[in-house]
C-alpha cells in the first residue's frame, strides 16, 4: 500500500544483532522524500549497517523498514528501488564505463539501445562522455567516483544510498564533489542517504543529520540544530570544536539557567529539558562565540590569562587559562585582527560569552 505522502524511508524500531553483538539498538527515523539525509558517526557506530539494511545486504533482526510506505524487509536487494554508491565504487572492472552505467537498466529489462542511450545521458551529466569506452582502471579516482554516481543514478532509484563515497578523494576534489553532489541531489529530486564520518562534509551538504554513536541515534536535526544546540556530550564533542565546562546549575528562572563553574565564575544560559536545579552537567560553548577583551564586559566576563595563540589560517585560536584550572579556547577570525586587540601570552584578559551561545548538555 503506497502512500504518496509517505516518507521516503521509514525505519521503525530497527534492531541489528550479530550473535551477541548489537550493532544497532532500536533505531527509528524517518527520511522525507527529496531530502539530503546524512548518517554521521565514528566508525563502528552502525551507520553503514543501517545503510546496508536499507539496501538489503543485511537483514533486520527486529523492527521494520518502509520505503514510501511499503515494507521492504522481504525484498532481496535486486528488487528494491534503491541504488548504492559504494565506498570503493565497485565498478565492474571488465566492463567499459558505458556498460557499467547501463548495467542497472539492462538488468531491469530495458533494451540494450535504451540502456546505452541513458548511460550516455548520465555520463554527460557527470561530464565523462569522452571516457565512455574506457575501462574503469583507466580513470582517476575522482572520475571513477563520478562513474559510480552515474551508474547508481541511471536507473532513477527512489532513494540513493551513498556509503562514504568521498573518503578516498583528496581534500580539494572532495570539496568540489560535495558541492556537485548537493547540486545533483537538488536537480534530480532523488532522496539521498549519505553515510560519513566527516562532520564537516555532513554539515556542508545535509538537509538533516542523524548523529550516531554506539548503535544509537544521539541527535537528529538540521546542521544548524546539531552544531548550535547539541543535545549531549557526544554530539557537542564530535561535531566541530567546543569548550566543555563542568558546571553546577544554581537556579532556573524564565527559561534561563544560572550556573557556576569552578574558580568562582558564573555563567547563564538557556535552560534545557532534562537538566534541573542542582544538576552537575557540562556546558558547551563554541570557541568562535567567545570574545576577548581587556576589561570585563558585563558581570559574566571570566577573568583569565592568555597562554598561547594558535594560527590556523582563517582563524586564530587563543588558549586562555582561568582560575580554578579551567582552560578555554577562543577563536577569532583572522580578518578581524586589525580591529581586534591582540593579547600577548601572559596578558590578563576577560573572556565574554555571546548571548545564548552556551548550551547545557544532557548526561
Amino acid at each position: 500500500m503506497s502512500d504518496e505522502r509517505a516518507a521516503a524511508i521509514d525505519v521503525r524500531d530497527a534492531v541489528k544483532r550479530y550473535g551477541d553483538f548489537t550493532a544497532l539498538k532500536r533505531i527509528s527515523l524517518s527520511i522525507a522524500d527529496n531530502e539530503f539525509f546524512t548518517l554521521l558517526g565514528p566508525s563502528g557506530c552502525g551507520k553503514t549497517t543501517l545503510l546496508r539494511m536499507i539496501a538489503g545486504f543485511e537483514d533486520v533482526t527486529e523492527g521494520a523498514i518502509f520505503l514510501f510506505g511499503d515494507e521492504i524487509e522481504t525484498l532481496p536487494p535486486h528488487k528494491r528501488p534503491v541504488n548504492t554508491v559504494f565506498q570503493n565504487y565497485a565498478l565492474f572492472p571488465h566492463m567499459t564505463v558505458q556498460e557499467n552505467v547501463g548495467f542497472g537498466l539492462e538488468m531491469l529489462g530495458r533494451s540494450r539501445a535504451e540502456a546505452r542511450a541513458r548511460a550516455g545521458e548520465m555520463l554527460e551529466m557527470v561530464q565523462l562522455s569522452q571516457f565512455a569506452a574506457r575501462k574503469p582502471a583507466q580513470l582517476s579516482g575522482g572520475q571513477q567516483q563520478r562513474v559510480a554516481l552515474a551508474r547508481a543514478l541511471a536507473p532513477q532509484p527512489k532513494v540513493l544510498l551513498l556509503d562514504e563515497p568521498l573518503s578516498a578523494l583528496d581534500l580539494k576534489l572532495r570539496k568540489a564533489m560535495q558541492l556537485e553532489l548537493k547540486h545533483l541531489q537538488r536537480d534530480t529530486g532523488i532522496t539521498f542517504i549519505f553515510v560519513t564520518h566527516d562532520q564537516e562534509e555532513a554539515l556542508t551538504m545535509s538537509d538533516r543529520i542523524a548523529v550516531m554513536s554506539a548503535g544509537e541515534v544521539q541527535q537528529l536535526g538540521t546542521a544548524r540544530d546539531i552544531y548550535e544546540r547539541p543535545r549531549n556530550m557526544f554530539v557537542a564533542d564530535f561535531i566541530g570544536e567546543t569548550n566543555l565546562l563542568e558546571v553546577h546549575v544554581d537556579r532556573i528562572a524564565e527559561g534561563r539557567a544560572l550556573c557556576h563553574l569552578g574558580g568562582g565564575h558564573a555563567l547563564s544560559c538557556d535552560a534545557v529539558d532534562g537538566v534541573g536545579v542542582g544538576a552537575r552537567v557540562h556546558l558547551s560553548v563554541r570557541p568562535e562565540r567567545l570574545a576577548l577583551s581587556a576589561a570585563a564586559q558585563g558581570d559574566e566576563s571570566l577573568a583569565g590569562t592568555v597562554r598561547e595563540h594558535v594560527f590556523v589560517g582563517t582563524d586564530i585560536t587563543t588558549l586562555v587559562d582561568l582560575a580554578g584550572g579551567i582552560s578555554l579556547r577562543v577563536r577569532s577570525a583572522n580578518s578581524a585582527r586589525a580591529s581586534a586587540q591582540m593579547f600577548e601570552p601572559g596578558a590578563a584578559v576577560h573572556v565574554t560569552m555571546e548571548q545564548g551561545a552556551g548550551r547545557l548538555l544532557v548526561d
Partner: protein
Amino acid sequence: MAKRYDLRVYPGFRAVTFLCLFVLYAPLVVVMVYSFNASPSITNWEGLSLRWYADVFTGPESAKFKAAARNSFVIALVAASVATAIATLSATAILRGGRFRLRLVSFGLISLPLMVPEIVTAVATLIFFNAIGFDRGLLTILLAHIAFCIPFAYLPIAARMQGIEDTYEQAAMDLYATRRQAFVRVLLPLMMPGIVSGFLLAFIVSLDDFIITNFVKGAGVETLPTAIFGSVKQGIRPNIMAISTMLLAVSVVMVTLSWLISRRDTTR
C-alpha cells in the same frame, strides 16, 4: 648497504643455482637433443635428423601411439572440463556460500587428494571400481581423471576468487541483477583467468598421469604415458624420445599459457 643483503652476492650463489638447474634440466635436454639423432642408438650421436619424429607418425608403432594420443587428449579435455566445472561450483559454494559449519572441512576435503600418495589413490580407485562392478576401460580412466583433477583445478580458481571482493556482486544485485545474473555477468568474467588457469593445469595433469591410469585402464586401452611405458619395457628406442619431446612441448605451452592468463589481472 642494501647490496650486502642481496642474495646474489652470497658465496656459492652461482654454483648452487647452476647445480639446481643442471639436476632439473639436464635429463630433459638429453632427451630433447637425442630425439633429433639420426642413429637408432640412444647414446651415439650420428648427426641431425627428424627420422624419429617421422617414425612416431608412420613407423611400426605409429598406430598404437596415435590411438593412445587420441585417448589421452580426449580424456584430458573431458576430464579437465568436468573437473573445472565442479571446481568452479565448489569454489563458489565454499567462498561465497557465507559461513557454514563444514566450510573448513570442505576446503580440506577438496585439497586433501593433493597430499595423498598417488599410488594410494590409484589402488583405492581400482578397488572402488571393482567393488561396484564397473568394467575397466576408457570410462574408468575418465572418471578417475575427473576425480583427481578437481583439486588441481580448484586451487587457481579459489585463489582467484579470494581476490575478488564481494562488493562487485553486491553492486550487481544492487543494480537489479538477480543472484544468477550477478554470477554470470560479474563474478564469472572476473574469475575467468582463474578458471582457464585451473582448466589448463587439470588438462596437463590428466595428460601426464601414469600411475592412476595404469591401475584403472582396461586391457588394450592405452593413454600416451602408458603406451610409452609399454614401449620402453621392450627397450628404449629414439622414437620414445621424440614423443617425450613433443609431450614436453605441449606441457610447456600449456603451463606458459596458464601462467600468462592467471597473471592477467582483470580487476585492474
